[in-house]
């Protein structure tokens, strides 16, 4: 069940350094939201605060509010472990567990909560997740082979299957295609289109054509000056951002790249 995310007044710090300043935005359910901006502008950092993955980095902390359908994920009683099983993540570099088979990779997260899942239920979940990730037909005959034997694009889809097997409501994708060739990229983009029927999807991308192709709404991040914190400059319908941006900075970035 896709959920809405409401961010208000979020600051992210690395130690004393303010990395991202005062972001407020709403991310709609059952849609794809793209974050664009130059490298180091804080969009990936911000993305990681949406499921508290930034806490893995020593010294990183966030201040502000992030509501997942009215529940503050930074609330005092909230357990980051549960936040992450509700808001899944796919990384820039495909990272299937190298010692596990394809099957075990998909089921790994689900097993954490349900140790004694019956075999038939597990089989169903694996098939459902792999089908959902458009990977089933390619791997159904070698589920017991290691996941690291797949191609880069297949590995990335395996990671998506692994993330969806936990049944999250939101999927965060941190430049999921930047290490892939154009054909694999296309396969992932097709998949994103399909996944947005069920999930809220947030994708960070360097590739503006990709943002234009896959997203419904786009948020543009930028540094106010070198060494200064990153900021959300503008957010709106993708169409509007790419054709009639309201801010000069957005227009410069977009035309500069497209130019």
């Amino acid at each position, binding site marked *: 069940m896709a959920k809405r995310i409401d961010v208000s007044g979020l600051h992210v710090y690395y130690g004393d350094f303010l990395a991202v300043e005062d972001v407020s935005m709403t991310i709609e359910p059952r849609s794809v939201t793209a974050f664009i901006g130059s490298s180091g502008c804080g969009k990936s950092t911000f993305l990681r605060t949406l499921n508290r993955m930034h806490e893995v980095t020593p010294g990183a902390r966030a201040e502000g509010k992030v509501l997942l359908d009215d529940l503050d994920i930074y609330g005092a009683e909230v357990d980051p472990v549960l936040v*992450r099983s509700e808001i899944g993540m796919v990384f820039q570099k495909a990272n299937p*567990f*190298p*010692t596990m088979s394809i099957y075990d990779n998909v089921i*790994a997260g689900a097993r954490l*909560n349900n140790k004694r899942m019956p075999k038939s239920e597990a089989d169903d979940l694996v098939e459902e997740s792999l089908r959902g990730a458009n990977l089933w037909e390619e791997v159904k005959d070698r589920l017991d082979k290691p996941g690291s034997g797949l191609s880069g694009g297949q590995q990335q889809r395996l990671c998506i299957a692994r*993330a969806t097997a936990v049944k999250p409501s939101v999927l965060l994708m941190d430049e999921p295609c930047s290490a892939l060739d154009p054909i694999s990229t296309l396969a992932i983009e097709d998949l994103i289109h399909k996944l947005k029927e069920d999930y809220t999807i947030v994708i960070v991308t360097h590739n503006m054509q990709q943002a234009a192709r896959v997203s419904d709404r786009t948020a543009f991040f930028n540094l106010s000056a070198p060494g200064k914190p990153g900021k959300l400059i503008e957010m709106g319908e993708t169409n509007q951002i790419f054709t009639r941006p309201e801010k000069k900075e957005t227009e410069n970035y977009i035309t500069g790249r497209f130019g």
Partner: protein
Amino acid sequence: MTTTDSPKAAPPPAGKRRIGDVVFAGLARGSGILILLILAGVAAFLLVQAWPSLMANTSNFLTDQSWDANSRENPSFGVAALAFGTVLAATIALALATPVAIGIALFIVYYAPRRLAATLGYLVDLLAAIPSVVYGLWGMMILAPKLVPVYEGMTRYLGWIPLFAGPASTSARTLLTAGIVLAVMILPIITAMSRDVFQQVPQGHREAALAMGATRWEMIRLAVLPFGKSGIVGGAMLGMGRALGETMAVAMILSPSLAISFDLLQSGNQTIAAHIALQYPEATGYGVSALIAAGLVLFAITLAVNMGARYVVARGNKESA
């Protein structure tokens, strides 16, 4: 010959340069070869000097348990009990040290506050800096007396387990005590190897586990331990190699007797290395030669274990590459 291969290198006086290179390369190469010669020498001299006693031995060197080599006539000695004690002591050390070492490595890499981690790791390394003779002194005079009541308790309540059969030694100078001290001595070795592999676990794998809602322990179970398996096994075997050859701590702690016995809480057993150190000063007749033969057996056992360790580590590196 190996000279500079840079095309830009404008050759200085040609003859001079070549001589310098040849001499230096020769020196370096010579050192490498010298190492091979030393090793060949170790094996050869040991064999040559062990040979007379092995020839004169009236019992089977590999299966006999007694040691009576100090006579000029008809020496009778065998390495069976010693080899057994050696392997048993090292196995105890390994069984005790490996789980603790994994715990320490996890602590340093994933649990300790990051600012303290390096210092705490350094403290563990200090354990490796303490000379084995000091461990022996400590094990015999401090640890053993403390263990006497523990062993008595163990024979009383766990005596039904064959390993812990009574009556417990009243001095606790037993193989288990030696094994405990050996375990402390090899902890830093296993810890260091495990730490290395744990630190090499790609961030991507750890984040993948956390991102699907794993707790810290589940992250370790899913991403860290499978990745570090070969490093842990390799480290454990290197530690065992060290424990097999350790001399002084065992020689000072153990109240020896030559027997094949699984009773860890009773006096008995002896290891090859400790036996050599204790017997050597009093060795006469074929004594020294026989001890050298025992040393060869020790060399062979440690060699096999160390080679196994390198093999496991190398295979693990290949797999994860």
